């Protein structure tokens, strides 16, 4: 089945390494991701703060496009949104369109003006969901050529993929990322802050608050022995990685913890090249795969 890939703005800019590694990993797994033709912004949290009906209409256009390309015999209608904010906005739109007929009516009227009609056929998926539930841990394990030899990983889920709609993982203690990390040979550390908020845009707007939220997350991950933190949201990754200098300067805390995308870690275990995974774009040099020192030999070579 072909998935409709919805990049969103971050994956084309500050989160480019997420796009690069996601596409590389899905290619390695032989799972086709096709970018949704002429997608538009999901609206994120900012749009919802200004006008609700327009925010839902904006998001709904993308769902309509996915329905259309699915109906054109182009494979499935599942839309894959790697950014947590995009994922939640699209999912929330889908939910609210069924739960609130009054809203649905207004949104449909808007869509009609550009010749679209929302039918509710496109399911909204997160890559993590696809990796664990469609592709499966066994298929991932089979593709591993370089076991991650006990690399200690703190899996950070962030907020919006498990709240308020926990569709593929429990809201209180999600484990999908931990299970993938373990399948790669890494050791997930027990880390109760895995769904605590990184502050979103607060790092930029009110740094006093935003930086502190990130310091808490980084410090606790390190205290639990993590060599690296992995995440599946471009904004979480940006906050947790790119603001480490600021945290050092303003809060006098030298964390120095690499923060990678889950897909970069998977790619490393698949033996994909650093440049294919966008590792050179990271601010904090990523953990080297400690394969050799831990005796984890290259399996299929």
């Amino acid at each position, binding site marked *: 089945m072909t998935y409709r890939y919805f990049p969103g703005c971050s994956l084309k800019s500050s989160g480019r390494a997420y796009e690069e590694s996601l596409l590389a990993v899905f290619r390695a797994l032989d799972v086709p991701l096709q970018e949704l033709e002429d997608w538009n912004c999901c609206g994120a949290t900012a749009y919802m703060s200004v006008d609700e009906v327009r925010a839902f209409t904006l998001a709904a256009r993308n769902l309509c496009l996915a329905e259309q390309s699915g109906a054109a015999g182009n494979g499935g209608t599942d839309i894959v949104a790697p950014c947590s904010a995009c994922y939640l906005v699209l999912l929330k739109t889908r939910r609210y369109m069924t739960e609130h007929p009054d809203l649905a009516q*207004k949104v449909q009227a808007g869509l009609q003006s550009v010749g679209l009609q929302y039918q509710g056929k496109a399911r909204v998926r997160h890559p993590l969901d696809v990796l664990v539930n469609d592709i499966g841990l066994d298929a991932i394990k089979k593709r591993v050529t370089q076991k991650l030899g006990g690399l200690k990983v703190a899996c950070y889920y962030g907020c919006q993929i498990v709240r*308020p709609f926990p569709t593929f993982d429990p809201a209180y203690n999600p484990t999908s990322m931990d299970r993938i990390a373990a399948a790669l040979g890494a050791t997930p550390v027990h880390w109760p802050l895995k769904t605590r908020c990184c502050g979103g845009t607060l790092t*930029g707007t009110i740094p006093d608050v935003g930086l502190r939220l990130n310091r808490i997350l980084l410090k606790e991950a390190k205290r639990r022995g993590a060599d690296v933190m992995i995440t599946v949201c471009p904004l979480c990754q940006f906050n947790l990685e790119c603001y480490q200098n600021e945290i050092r300067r303003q809060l006098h805390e030298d964390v120095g913890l690499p923060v990678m995308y889950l897909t970069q870690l998977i790619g490393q275990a698949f033996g994909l090249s650093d440049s294919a995974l966008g590792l050179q774009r990271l601010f904090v040099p990523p953990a080297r795969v400690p394969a050799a020192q831990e005796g984890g030999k290259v399996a299929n070579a």
Partner: protein
Amino acid sequence: MPTSVREHAEVRRKITYQAELDPQFGEHIAKMAYGEKLFSCIQCGTCSGTCPVSHYMDYTPRRIIAMVREGFRDDVLNSLTIWLCASCYSCTAECPREIKITDVMYALKQEAIKKGVYPKRFPIPVLAQEFFRGVERTGRNSEGPLMVKFFLKTNPLGMLKNAPMAMRLWFKGRLSLFEEGMKNKGVVARLLRAAKQAEGERQ
């Protein structure tokens, strides 16, 4: 010689008179936020306890709910609380009365922006509105240009302070100053105009 207290300290009334309350405010917000359940809040404070930023807020989420219900419109719309909410949905997930507190916060932000009641250079609503305008024009959000506009409108000096980070992003290929555009130009503007009209007709 009589001395006015005002010469020594700013005197501010600490209470709100009943006559200043807006008795329809609660209903209005509840309707906006699909929150009929707003009125079943038992004031347990779970929302405030689970909120990662409640200790920076002027009113905790629990108090905001109580104030919305009682019609403290001006106090609520002028509060810092509604802008500090980062939409992490912890409160919504935990609320034993299933109140969609995050949606209530969104509704309050929308009201505050509509009424223009926030400090002029206050960063969060400015960011939201610049984001809104950018998407209206091009259909997509462009992170680089958005940040430039954001700093110009809130804190031009902040741009200098953030220059090292911007340079680093640039060298890593993570920042572009070009606007992202769609092939089908104008479709989003048309869509949003129609949505606005549909909204107006049914209100």
